[in-house]
């Protein structure tokens, strides 16, 4: 008798608990939608920074004025502890939004592998959207191994190297070096004149941190390999010759004591180093903290250096780029409504201009440096022009669900030991290949 009472009490508590959690899965969403009659409700998760949220709120408000049957709720994606983890938790709890931005190609590969997002190329009007936004070339490198497009890139930062032109001029150079031997030559001259300065200060070169490889190894490898994919689907397709040359470049930098691998605060700005991997997000920071960092006076920008004998004008680089995805947990109606909203936003280049002004992040368009709509903006912000010009030359991250493990292995097996002088570039490459094949099998 007593046991039964206990059981009843426990059941009651659990029921209350479940009800109290406010679990609002798919059923909850559908019910909500029914209540609203014919209005389609879309939850849009914007990147957790105020400028991007402001842009999407503005777009959503304008769209809703024209389309009374759609209600878009824009909110910042949770960051607990990262935005990827926030999305993962939301999917697990059945609370995923209909659409979100801030998705890298690598994370999209993890999501698509788990069928959590839908292919965008299957929506009616996809080709029309690509044509209208002038992004045929840019999006071609985004195609996944299964032939589908899961992400619509919003912005693309073609990663460039910044060079302290004031210091280079002191060394007798008027332009940054373009090939490996030119870089080493500049480095040697720098050390002769300033023994305490370095060519490149980057503590991550000796750390296996997976995402750090985007801003060192992949910048140099993409330039050396003319953008040959490192991984294709589930196969290692990297260009060994280019990869070994890239590693040899890192080895030479290290051997000549041109890289500083200790943690350093603002090394480029303070002149401790004369070269730095730079994204456009640096410039608003400089405007606030280092107003003396003027384009063409203190620094210039260039594409990554290439191996000797390679044409520098054909160099490729890494694209730090993120885009929009539509979640599989949403209803078909919500998915289509979300896609229609995106199509509407990108049908007008003025919206991309507004994005650029608001966020400083270059829209992922092939015509960014030539389209009339952006000309005056780039005249006012000349430091961003080279980023815009190189969008079609920037290679996005790999589309493999095991990207984190794979990029960790590039550091552990190849880049880190080469920079520390523990392995030859050939052995490092072979060890890395073996380890990567082990993960991919």
């Amino acid at each position, binding site marked *: 008798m007593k046991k039964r009472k206990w059981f009843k009490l426990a059941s009651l508590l659990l029921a209350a608990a479940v009800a109290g959690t406010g679990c609002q899965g798919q059923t909850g969403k559908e019910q909500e939608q029914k209540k609203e009659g014919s209005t389609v409700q879309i939850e849009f998760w914007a990147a957790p920074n105020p400028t991007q949220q402001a842009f999407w709120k503005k777009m959503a408000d304008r769209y809703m004025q024209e389309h009374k049957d759609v209600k878009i709720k824009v909110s910042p994606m949770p960051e607990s502890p990262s935005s990827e983890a926030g999305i993962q938790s939301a999917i697990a709890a059945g609370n995923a939004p209909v659409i979100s931005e801030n998705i890298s190609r690598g994370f999209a590969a*993890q999501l698509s592998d788990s069928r959590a997002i839908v292919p965008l190329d299957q929506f009616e009007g996809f080709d029309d959207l690509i044509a209208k936004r002038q992004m045929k070339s840019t999006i071609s490198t985004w195609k996944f191994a299964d032939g589908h497009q899961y992400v619509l890139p919003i912005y693309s930062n073609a990663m460039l190297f910044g060079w302290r032109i004031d210091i280079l001029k002191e060394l007798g150079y008027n332009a940054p070096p373009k090939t490996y031997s030119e870089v080493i030559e500049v480095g040697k001259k720098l050390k002769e004149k300033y023994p305490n300065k370095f060519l490149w200060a980057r503590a991550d070169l000796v750390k296996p941190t997976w995402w750090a490889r985007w801003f060192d190894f992949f910048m140099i490898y993409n330039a050396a390999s003319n953008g040959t994919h490192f991984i294709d689907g589930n196969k290692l397709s990297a260009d060994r010759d280019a990869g070994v040359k890239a590693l040899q470049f890192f080895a030479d930098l290290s051997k000549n004591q041109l890289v500083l*691998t200790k943690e*350093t605060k603002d090394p480029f700005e303070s002149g401790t180093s004369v070269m730095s991997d730079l994204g456009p997000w640096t410039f608003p920071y400089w405007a606030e903290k280092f107003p003396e960092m003027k384009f063409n006076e203190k620094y210039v920008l260039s594409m990554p250096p290439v191996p000797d004998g390679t044409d520098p004008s054909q160099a490729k680089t890494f694209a730090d780029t993120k885009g929009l995805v539509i979640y599989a947990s949403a209803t078909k109606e919500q998915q289509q409504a979300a896609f229609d909203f995106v199509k509407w936003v990108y049908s007008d280049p003025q919206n991309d201009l507004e994005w650029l002004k608001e966020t400083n992040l270059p829209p992922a368009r092939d015509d960014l440096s030539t389209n009339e709509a952006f000309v005056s903006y780039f005249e006012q912000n000349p430091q961003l022009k080279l980023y815009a010009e190189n969008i079609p030359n920037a290679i996005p991250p790999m589309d493999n669900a095991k990207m984190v493990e794979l990029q960790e292995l590039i550091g552990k097996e190849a880049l880190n030991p080469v920079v520390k002088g523990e392995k030859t570039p050939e052995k490092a490459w072979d060890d890395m290949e073996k380890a990567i094949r082990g993960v991919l099998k």
Partner: protein
Amino acid sequence: MGCSNNMNKHAAKVGWLLASPYLIYSAVFFLIPLFWALYLAFTNWNLISPEYETVGVQNFLDAFFSPSVRAAFWVTYKFMLMFVPIVIAGSLCLALILHHLPRWKGLFAVGYFLPYLASGVASSIVVKGVISYNSPLNQFLRDALGWDIDWLGSPILAPLVIALMMAWKFVGYYALLFLSGLESIPKEVYEAAEMDGAIGWKRVWHVTIPMLYPSFYTVTILAVGLMFGIFTEPYVLTGGGPEYATHTWQLEIYNQAFEKLNAGYGTAVAIINSIVTFASIFVFRKVLEKWGGKHGWE
């Protein structure tokens, strides 16, 4: 008799009703997640895929043979060896100083407690700046002494930096516990000890420290437990490196569950972490209780 039974039943109902918020809270935030985690640890689910399989004890076997899990196990004890003595000595000294302050004791106590409230990310960034290659400290060491120290690149110095930073953060908090212990030692005990000739260090060693046993016990257990939950400082400062020298349990769990999307495996590591934490604290408790028993604390 019947009336008293009814009253007891009524009181029990009221009791359950009053306890229900806590019970519901525990069920939602502890009990359900605990059972869910136990289930998850036996699957290969990544939290987002609609399909997953149960894999038996494979996750646990993988964890036992994983170099990064083994590193997390040993690194925790390495941190413990550095952090626990430093924080106990530091907080005890601080408590003794505060105890003997003639005035503004509370103000100073609050001042030293403030680092405990500071965000781990913020204080890690500050520390990163202080030991940066071009910081005034390192410039002085290079120029004056010729020492070019790689603070976060050395497998010995990197954990020491983190242990010292955490000690700075917790010393004020633990000092409050020692201070309350010091304040509760009756004056008569000191007077009696003085009559027996115990003055100066003899008094501290033979009277104060044994009388502080309850505070020592609490601080030691708190400090030991803390070592199993380190995340923010190595995450911001070293990422677990160099060569796993600062790779903690929480970093391993986070990397597996949220970066590599191996949630099932990550949960198995979390369960092993809980067992190791429980066992370690149990051993420490037993050792401390034995020591306390020898000195008259039952």
